[in-house]
C-alpha cells in the first residue's frame, strides 16, 4: 500500500517534463520559445486540476478527511460545552453501570475457572421426573459417594463437607478460632492444586479413623507460623487433638470450600454419611468422555438400596448428569446477575433515548450551518459523515469516562457483596470487559446518532436557507415518543426495584417470634475431644452460664445450638410414637437449648412448660416443639404429653421464630417445624457430630446497655474453659442482616440503577420542555401580549412533556404485567402486582415528571412580551 503511493512532487515533475517535450515539438514546427511554451500549457489544460486529481486518487485521502472531520467535530463539541458535558456524563454513567455489571457477569459466567483444563471439571445434577419434578445439584450421602468413587472410573471424584466450620486451633500458647474445611482425598487433585510444600491427603488418611492430618492455606501458614517450612510433620492441636501438618497450599489458591485449613473428610456410610452431607466435584480422566461418565454414574447410583431422591414421589424417575463445575458453582447467582445485566441494558436504552433527543435538537439547531455547507457543495454523505464522526467522538469520550465510572462502581459493588459471594477468581477489567465497553460505546453512538442522521436526509435546501428560524416543531412528536419509551423502561425498573424493596421490608419486619433487642450472643466451637464427653460438656454449660448470669445487668443467660435467623440442624426420622399419627416419621429442625433460652430470647411458651434444670441426663426425656410442628404433624391438636421417638415426651409448645430455611427453602426467612431438646439429654455420640457442623451460641439478655459486656462474656467463658476462644459477638440485628445479605445487595443495586434511570428520564423531560420554551419564546410572548396568564402559558408549554410521560407510564405499566412475572421467585410476602409498590411507582414518576416540567417553564415568567416582539 505504501509502496504504490506516488508523491505529488513526482507527478508535478512528470507534467513539467510533458510541457517541455510539447513546447520543444512546437518549436520544431516553428513557434517562438515563449509562444510554444504557452501553447503547450494551454493544450495541457489545468495543471492544478490534474494534480488535484492525482491527489484525490491517493489512498490516504480518507484519513485526511477523517482528520478534518475529527478536528471540526472537536471544535463543534468544544463550542457547545453544556451539550458535550451532558452527553459524556450520561454516557459515562450508563456505560459505567454496564461495564461494572458485565465484569461480574464475565467473572461468574464467562471466564474460565482458575484451574487447569476447567472444561474437564464438573459436578453432578439430579433430574427427577414424576409427580414432583426437580433438576438441581444434590448433596450426596455416604452410599452415593462410595459408588461414585468405586464404580465411575471415567472420573476422578472428590467430596467435601458442605461448609467450613469454626474450630479452635492451638499453636504454641495461642488459641485461635479458625475455619476448617473437610475434604476427601483427591479433592485437590480434582482442582489440580499442588501444595507448595508437602502433599495432598492420601487414601489412607481419608479412611474412617485414619491418621489425623491437616493442610494449611497459605495465609494461615504465614500469619500463624511466619511461613516456617519446618511446619511439615509437626502436630497442631485442632479440636483439642493433635493433627500432623502434611502440606501448605500455594498463595491465592482458590478452593470452592473456602477455609483457613483443611482436614481429611474421612467419609463413610456411617455417621454423617447416612444423610446427604457431602458435596461432590469431579474431573474427567484423560481419554474419557462425559457421556461415559454419566452412563457410569447412572448405572452406579440406580442400584442403591436407599434412593432418598425418589421418596414421597411415587412413580418418579431420577437420572444423573454432569454439568460443568462453573455452572454448578454459579447456578444460584446466575438469575440475579442476569437480571442486573438486563437492568443495566435498560439504563443504556434510556440513555440512548435521551441522547437521541438531545442530538436531534442539536442537529436541528445547526440547520443553517448544514444548509450553508450543502449550498457550498458538500454532499449529503459528507454531512452525514461529519455527524457520525461527532457521535463517535462523543461515544468514545463517554466510553472512556464509562470505564472510569465502571471501575469505581465495581469497587463499590465488591465491597457491598458478602465475602466469598463470588466463587472463584477475582473480578477485574480484562480484555473481554474492555471489548464489551467498546462495543457498547459503538452501539450507543449508533442508537442515538441514527435519528438525527436520518433527519438530514430530508433537508430541503431552499426552505431551510430561506427561513431564519430553525425548524423543529414537527420533530416534537418524535421526541415525545423517545421520552415515552424511556419513561416506560424506567417504570419497569421502578416497579421491579419497588417490589424488591417491599420484599426486603417484609422480611425485615417479619414478626420474628422473639424479641431481638437487648440480646448479645457469642459463638464458640465445641468440636473438641474434651467435649466428646457429655458430662464435661454439661459442666462447661453450667459453669459458664452461672458466671454470665453474675454480670451486672444480665437478666438471662442461655446456650442454644443455633439461633433464630440462622439455619438449624435438620433432623430426619423423628418418629411420632402415639395418637393417630403414630409410626409416622417426620423431619424437623432440632435445637438443643438450656432452660433460659426461651426467656432470654423472649420466645413465648404457649402451652406447657419450658425446660428446667431438673431435665437432666437421668430423668424423663423431654422436648418442646413449636407451633409449626404442632400444625404440621399434630394438626393443631394438643401436643403436650405426646411422645416422640418412643420415650421423649413433649412438655411445651412455643411460638414460631423466623429462621433461615433448611428443610424447604421457600423464602430467606421462614418458620420451620422445630423441636427443642435439653442439651443435658443429648448423647455424647450425637453431640460430637453436631459440633462438627454447628458452633453453639451463648445468649445473654440485659435490661439495658452494659459497659464492656462482650469482654465480661469472654471472661465468663474463659473461667469455664480458658482454651475456648469465641468466634466473635453478634447482636440479633447482625444475624438478621447476614441472613438477608443477598436481598440487601439486590435491593441496593437495583435501586441504584432505578435512581439512575429516573434521573435520566427526568433529564430527558427537562431537556424537552426547556427546548420548547427556548423555541417558542416568541409565540409565548405573543400569547402573553394577547392576555394569556403566565400559568396558562406554562401549562401550554409543559403539556407535551406531561403527556409523553403519562403515555410512558401507561406503556410501562403494560410492560410490567409481563416483565414482573419473571420476578416471582425472588418476591416474598407480596404479590407480583403489589398495589403499594405500583402506587409508589406512579406517584414517584408523577412527581419527577412535574418537577422536570415545571422547572424549565419557570423561565416563562421572565419573558417580556414587548421585548420578544421587538426582537422579531
Amino acid at each position, binding site marked *: 500500500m505504501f509502496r*504504490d503511493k*506516488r508523491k505529488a512532487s513526482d*507527478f508535478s*515533475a*512528470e*507534467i513539467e*517534463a*510533458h510541457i*517541455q*517535450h*510539447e513546447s*520543444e*515539438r*512546437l518549436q520544431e*514546427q516553428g*513557434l517562438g520559445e515563449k509562444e510554444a511554451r504557452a*501553447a503547450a500549457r494551454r*493544450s*495541457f*489544460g*489545468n*495543471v492544478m*486540476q*490534474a494534480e488535484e*486529481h*492525482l491527489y484525490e*486518487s491517493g489512498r490516504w485521502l480518507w484519513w485526511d478527511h477523517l482528520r478534518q472531520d475529527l478536528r471540526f467535530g472537536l471544535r463543534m463539541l468544544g463550542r457547545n460545552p453544556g451539550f458535550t458535558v451532558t452527553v459524556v456524563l450520561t454516557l459515562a454513567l450508563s456505560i459505567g453501570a454496564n461495564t461494572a455489571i458485565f465484569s461480574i457477569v464475565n467473572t461468574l459466567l464467562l471466564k474460565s475457572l482458575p484451574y487447569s483444563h476447567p472444561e474437564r471439571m464438573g459436578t453432578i445434577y439430579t433430574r427427577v421426573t414424576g409427580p414432583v419434578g426437580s433438576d438441581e445439584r444434590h448433596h450426596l450421602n455416604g452410599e452415593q459417594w462410595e459408588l461414585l468413587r468405586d464404580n465411575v472410573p471415567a472420573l476422578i471424584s472428590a467430596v467435601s463437607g458442605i461448609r467450613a466450620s469454626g474450630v479452635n486451633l492451638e499453636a504454641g500458647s495461642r488459641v485461635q478460632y479458625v475455619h476448617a474445611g473437610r475434604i476427601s482425598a483427591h479433592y485437590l487433585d480434582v482442582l489440580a492444586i499442588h501444595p507448595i510444600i508437602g502433599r495432598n491427603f492420601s487414601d489412607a488418611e481419608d479412611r474412617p479413623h485414619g491418621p489425623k492430618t491437616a493442610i494449611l492455606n497459605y495465609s494461615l501458614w504465614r500469619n500463624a507460623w511466619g511461613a516456617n517450612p519446618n511446619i511439615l510433620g509437626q502436630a497442631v492441636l485442632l479440636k483439642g487433638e493433635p493433627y500432623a501438618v502434611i502440606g501448605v497450599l500455594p498463595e491465592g489458591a482458590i478452593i470452592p470450600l473456602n477455609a483457613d485449613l483443611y482436614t481429611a473428610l474421612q467419609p463413610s456410610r456411617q455417621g454423617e454419611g447416612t444423610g446427604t452431607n457431602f458435596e461432590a466435584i469431579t474431573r474427567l480422566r484423560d481419554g474419557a468422555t462425559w457421556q461415559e461418565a454419566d452412563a457410569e454414574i447412572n448405572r452406579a447410583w440406580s442400584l442403591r438400596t436407599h434412593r432418598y431422591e425418589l421418596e414421597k414421589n411415587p412413580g418418579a424417575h431420577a437420572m444423573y448428569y454432569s454439568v460443568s463445575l462453573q455452572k454448578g458453582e454459579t447456578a444460584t447467582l446466575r438469575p440475579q446477575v442476569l437480571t442486573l445485566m438486563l437492568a443495566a441494558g435498560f439504563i443504556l436504552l434510556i440513555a440512548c433515548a435521551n441522547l437521541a433527543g438531545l442530538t436531534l435538537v442539536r442537529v436541528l439547531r445547526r440547520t443553517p450551518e448544514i444548509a450553508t455547507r450543502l449550498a457550498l457543495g458538500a454532499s449529503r454523505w459528507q454531512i452525514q459523515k461529519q455527524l457520525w464522526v461527532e457521535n463517535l467522538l462523543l461515544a468514545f469520550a463517554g466510553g472512556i469516562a464509562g470505564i472510569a465510572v465502571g471501575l469505581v462502581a465495581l469497587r463499590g459493588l465488591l465491597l457491598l457483596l458478602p465475602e466469598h459471594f463470588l466463587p472463584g477468581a477475582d473480578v477485574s477489567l480484562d480484555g473481554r470487559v474492555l471489548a464489551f465497553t467498546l462495543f457498547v460505546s459503538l452501539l450507543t453512538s449508533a442508537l442515538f446518532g441514527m435519528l438525527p442522521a436520518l433527519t438530514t436526509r430530508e433537508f430541503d435546501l431552499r426552505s431551510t436557507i430561506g427561513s431564519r428560524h430553525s425548524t423543529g416543531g414537527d420533530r416534537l412528536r418524535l421526541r415525545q415518543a423517545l421520552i415515552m419509551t424511556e419513561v416506560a423502561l424506567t417504570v419497569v425498573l421502578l416497579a421491579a426495584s419497588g417490589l424488591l424493596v417491599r420484599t426486603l421490608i417484609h422480611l425485615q419486619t417479619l414478626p420474628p417470634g422473639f424479641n431481638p433487642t437487648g440480646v448479645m450472643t457469642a459463638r464458640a466451637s465445641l468440636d473438641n475431644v474434651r467435649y466428646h464427653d457429655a458430662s464435661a460438656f454439661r459442666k462447661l454449660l453450667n459453669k459458664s452460664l452461672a458466671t454470665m448470669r453474675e454480670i451486672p445487668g444480665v437478666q438471662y443467660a442461655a446456650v442454644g445450638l443455633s439461633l433464630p435467623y440462622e439455619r438449624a440442624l435438620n433432623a430426619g426420622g423423628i418418629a411420632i410414637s402415639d395418637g393417630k399419627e403414630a409410626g409416622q416419621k417426620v423431619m424437623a429442625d432440632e435445637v438443643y437449648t438450656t432452660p433460659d433460652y426461651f426467656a432470654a430470647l423472649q420466645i413465648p411458651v404457649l402451652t406447657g412448660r419450658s425446660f428446667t434444670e431438673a431435665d437432666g441426663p437421668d430423668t424423663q426425656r423431654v422436648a418442646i416443639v413449636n407451633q409449626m410442628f404442632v400444625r404440621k404433624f399434630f394438626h393443631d391438636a394438643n401436643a403436650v404429653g405426646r411422645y416422640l421417638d418412643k420415650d421423649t415426651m413433649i412438655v411445651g409448645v412455643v411460638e414460631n421464630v423466623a429462621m433461615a430455611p433448611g428443610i424447604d427453602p421457600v423464602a430467606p426467612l421462614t418458620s420451620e417445624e422445630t423441636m427443642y431438646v435439653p442439651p443435658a439429654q443429648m448423647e455424647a455420640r450425637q453431640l460430637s457430630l453436631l459440633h462438627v457442623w454447628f458452633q453453639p451460641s451463648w445468649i445473654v439478655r440485659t435490661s439495658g446497655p452494659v459497659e464492656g459486656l462482650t469482654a465480661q462474656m469472654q471472661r465468663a467463658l474463659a473461667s469455664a474453659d480458658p482454651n475456648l476462644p469465641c468466634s466473635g459477638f453478634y447482636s440479633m440485628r447482625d444475624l438478621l442482616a447476614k441472613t438477608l445479605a443477598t436481598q440487601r445487595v439486590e435491593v441496593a443495586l437495583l435501586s441504584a440503577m432505578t435512581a439512575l434511570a429516573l434521573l435520566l428520564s427526568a433529564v430527558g423531560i427537562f431537556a424537552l420542555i426547556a427546548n420548547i420554551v427556548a423555541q417558542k419564546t416568541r409565540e409565548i410572548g405573543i400569547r402573553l401580549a394577547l392576555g394569556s396568564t403566565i400559568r396558562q402559558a406554562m401549562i401550554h408549554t409543559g403539556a407535551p412533556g406531561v403527556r409523553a410521560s403519562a403515555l410512558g407510564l401507561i406503556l410501562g405499566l403494560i410492560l410490567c404485567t409481563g416483565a414482573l412475572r419473571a420476578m416471582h421467585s425472588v418476591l416474598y410476602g407480596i404479590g407480583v402486582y403489589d398495589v403499594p409498590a405500583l402506587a409508589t411507582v406512579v406517584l414517584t414518576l408523577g412527581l419527577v415528571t412535574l418537577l422536570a416540567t415545571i422547572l424549565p417553564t419557570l423561565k416563562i415568567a421572565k419573558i417580556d412580551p414587548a421585548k420578544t416582539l421587538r426582537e422579531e
Partner: protein
Amino acid sequence: MSTQETRERLELLQGTLDLLILRTLIFGSQHGQGIARAIQQTSEEELLVEHGALYPALQRLEERGWISAKWGTSANNRKARFYSLTAAGRKQLVKETAKWKRLAAAIGRILDPAKEG
C-alpha cells in the same frame, strides 16, 4: 498548435483513452507526451488527446497494474517518466480490443443496415 487548428478533431469517447494508451504501449515503453503524440498521429490527427486527462488515466492504469512506470531519458535527452505494458495490461488489451470491435461492429450494423443485408 495553430497549424492543426484548421480541422476540427474528434473528442475521445468515454473509456476509449485507456484502450488507446494500452494499444500504443504495445510497441514499447513511452512517456506521456509520446503516447499523446502517437495516438494523434496514428489516428491521422483525427483524435484529440486532452493532455490534462492523459495523466490521470495513466495514473489509473498504473494503479490497476496494467502499466508500470520508470523515470528515464527521452530521445532529446530529457528526463521523462516512461510507461510500459505489464502482462496483466497485455491481457486487458486483448480483452478490451475484442470488446471494442464487437461494439463498433454492432453500432455499424445499426447505423448502416443495408451493408449487412
